[in-house]
């Protein structure tokens, strides 16, 4: 999450909304956000329905795996990072950049 916070300017300049998502409760996420200084909203998937819809629910552990999805303005997934790749926000930021320029060129 810290990596995304560090790159937030890059994302926002690309007309992009960033969300952090976990299965934690809203109060737990609020405390976490305060602790690490995150300014974008953290969403609470307390019922674990979203992690299941996105196919990243870890049955054994009871929570979601790390993953980043980039959804374009048409609601279509344009980029996916799963596991270790998703920790680094650079790839996601670059993908957003490509997306913005692609859309602008059309």
């Amino acid at each position, binding site marked *: *999450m*810290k*990596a*995304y916070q560090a790159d937030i300017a890059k994302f926002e300049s690309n*007309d*992009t*909304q*960033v*969300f*952090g*998502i*976990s*299965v*934690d409760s*809203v109060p*737990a*996420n*609020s*405390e*976490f*956000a305060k*602790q690490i200084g995150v300014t974008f*909203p*953290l*969403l*609470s*998937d307390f019922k674990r*329905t*979203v*992690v299941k*819809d*996105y*196919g*990243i629910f*870890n049955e054994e552990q009871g929570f*979601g*795996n*790390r*993953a*980043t*999805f*980039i*959804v374009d*303005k*048409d*609601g*279509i*997934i*344009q*980029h*996916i990072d*799963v*596991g*270790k790749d*998703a*920790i680094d*926000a650079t790839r*996601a930021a670059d993908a*957003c950049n490509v*997306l913005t320029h692609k859309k602008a060129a059309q």
Partner: protein
Amino acid sequence: MRITRLLSAFVVCLLCSIASIAQQTAPPKTSLKVGDVAPDFTMRATDGKTYKLSDFKGKKNVVLAFYVLAFTGG
């Protein structure tokens, strides 16, 4: 006899390579792929608002950064 031995060695090799491929493609993974429609959701956020993914349609790109648990690294 010799052919049987050769054949069994071949089978063992084949099984090993299948096993290693299976291991490589094991998790992490997702059932979604690029080009799929992002499943819609409504979730409560730390800023007190409730966000719906489809509300951003035609307005903004959305980055969904799923993290494992709060108070953990990364």
